[in-house]
């Protein structure tokens, strides 16, 4: 079976006046049809840039190498018209801030209908009525009235529902959701996670869920990739990852989540130190300076990601379950 998305040895480097920064440092990953893959990592770990590269949305000073195949077709080498046929229809993206990802001066109806006019050559009138039906499917109340409204007239959660509706219009095979709930209140976040779960089972598309919040990813993902300093350091089935993390970074990160049922007024477990700055030399394991298990070997030799397609770890001394 062809994976829906297949990324091989992807590197993304940003050049600037004083040097260059390696934002993505040799990432390989697969997303199977209908699979939900969670990507977690802290800011600067490169989790967003991997998928910006796939969507052809990297900044102008980015240099990309490697391969990104979507349904078997290479995306990195293609021209803009070819890429435009795929993105927005078969391959779509939901961003963190629904206000800035909607056009402020166009009505919701126009923005949604435009997608089908452009990709499916549908007449505007049909597109608009389909847009209304899609809003209904993502549980936007009074969908007919919403079509005539502008983004600023909607709440943050409602805008995110519009973005989700937009991503589904052409029945995509892969939706990439980049921190889709981070800008939302906790009550609204719970609803959007619920909605993503519902549309996934209804539309059957694959879903990539990028988040810094392990608990958000835990509710949806079948499989989780943990990124650190531009690399994937662990890849595991969700239950395995939370039950038996193998990379020390994953294990430490899990300990850092304040437990809502845990001891109060006690010190929180922490991860000492800082993530490496982008651009730092990475001959060694990038996590070694913060790692409780680090040995001499970790400071000299960089561990590669090894294992089967559903259980990989990049560590010389992984935890055993």
């Amino acid at each position, binding site marked *: 079976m062809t994976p829906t998305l297949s990324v091989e040895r992807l590197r993304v480097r940003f050049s600037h006046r004083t040097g260059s920064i390696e934002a993505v440092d040799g990432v390989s990953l697969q997303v199977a049809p209908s699979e939900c893959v969670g990507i977690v990592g*802290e*800011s600067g770990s490169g989790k967003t840039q991997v998928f910006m590269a796939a969507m052809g949305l990297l900044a102008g000073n980015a240099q990309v190498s490697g391969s990104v195949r979507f349904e078997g077709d290479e995306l990195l080498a293609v021209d803009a018209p070819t890429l435009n046929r795929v993105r927005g229809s078969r391959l779509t993206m939901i961003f963190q801030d629904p206000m800035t990802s909607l056009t402020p001066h166009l009505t919701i109806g126009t923005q949604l209908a435009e997608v089908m006019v452009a990709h499916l050559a549908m007449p505007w009138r049909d597109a608009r009525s389909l847009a209304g039906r899609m809003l209904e499917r993502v549980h936007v*109340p009074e969908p007919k009235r919403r079509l005539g409204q502008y983004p600023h007239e909607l*709440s943050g*959660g*409602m805008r995110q529902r519009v973005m989700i509706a937009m991503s589904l219009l052409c029945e995509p095979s892969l939706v990439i959701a980049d921190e889709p709930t981070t800008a939302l*209140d*906790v*009550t*609204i*976040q*719970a*609803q959007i*996670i*619920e909605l993503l779960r519902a549309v996934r089972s209804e539309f059957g598309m694959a879903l990539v869920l990028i988040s*810094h*919040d*392990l*608990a*958000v990813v*835990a*509710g949806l993902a079948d499989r989780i990739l943990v990124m650190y300093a531009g690399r994937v350091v662990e890849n595991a089935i*969700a*239950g*395995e990852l*939370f*039950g*038996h993390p193998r990379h020390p970074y994953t294990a*430490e*990160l*899990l300990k*850092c*989540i*304040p*437990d*809502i*049922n*845990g001891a*109060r*007024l*006690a*010190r*929180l*477990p*922490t*991860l*000492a130190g*800082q*993530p490496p700055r982008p651009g730092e030399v990475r001959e060694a394991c990038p996590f070694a300076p913060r790692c409780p298990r680090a040995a001499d070997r970790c400071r000299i030799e960089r561990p590669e990601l090894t294992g089967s397609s559903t259980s990989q770890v990049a560590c010389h001394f992984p935890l055993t379950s």
Partner: protein
Amino acid sequence: MTNTLLSVRDLHVDFGAHAVIRGVNFDLSAGETVGLVGESGSGKSTLARAILRLLQPAQGSVEFLGLDLLKCPQAELRAQRRGLQVVFQDPLASLDPRMTVGETIAEPLKIFEPGLNAGARLRQVNAMLERVGLSPDMTGRYPHEFSGGQCQRIGIARAMILSPKLLICDEIVSSLDMSIQGQIVNLLLDLQRAAGMAVLFISHNLAVVRHLSHRVLVMYLGKLVEIAPCDALFASPIHPYTRALLAAVPRIAPHAAGAASPQAPGELSPPQAPPELAPAVLASAEVASAEVSPPRLMASGCAFRDRCPHALPVCETSNPALLEVAPGHWAACHRSHETLNPLSLRQ
């Protein structure tokens, strides 16, 4: 409470025609940590700014050590602010980019202790840097050279250098990465243990609030709807809004965490919750209705009623008062007593 440090009474703040804070009352004791939670737009930060008199409230009083900060003259207010410090959410934006870290932390000393000579000031700054986990040799550096977590430490150092009696922390961990959040929370706990100051900890992160606070205030559309000792609030929340907030916290589900999970499904629900109010039901009933009708202020009655699955006709006509329903546990809900006594809610 015995040793009252801050006493807020009938506080109202209007932004033009919009009532943003609508009659807030609470006390804060010396050395106490009070968490303030609520959704964006509920007025948490506005309340903090009103207490600091960074904006002028329409009505009410804020007594700090017996003195009404809202009515006292500017000179007096300045003097009082020495004991009343604040740390803001965005660590980089709240530091002056053109001042070195040393100058930033020394500035409050220059203002409040002009008699101090440069050498003594530097010693205090260096000692403070060490207390917040930074190295004294960083005094000559500028904010842009630091990470978000380090900038937040600098902001805390600046606020702590005058040994305040009350530290207001407005979402100080929200913009930080998960692995850094714990470092800042621990720092705050250590500083409080050593210096004994009171903390008003504003956050939308309920797990962190629970971890730090002695008491918690829950705010909804400019009103406090529940005040309770921390354990009571998380174990037996009374207001439906508090219950919805708690139910919405994403958790690493036990089934996903496998056998090693520290949580059993039963522990997730408040022990006293009747079956129809279990979090799963809350998530679908209370949380779901929340988005259908975004928070908006109504002319009369309970502001939460159109999001509330338990609203009665009385909720439309009369605004529930904040009443003490159990020792130290206050709630503003017409059905508080039914929630406390689950059997009667089933009828």
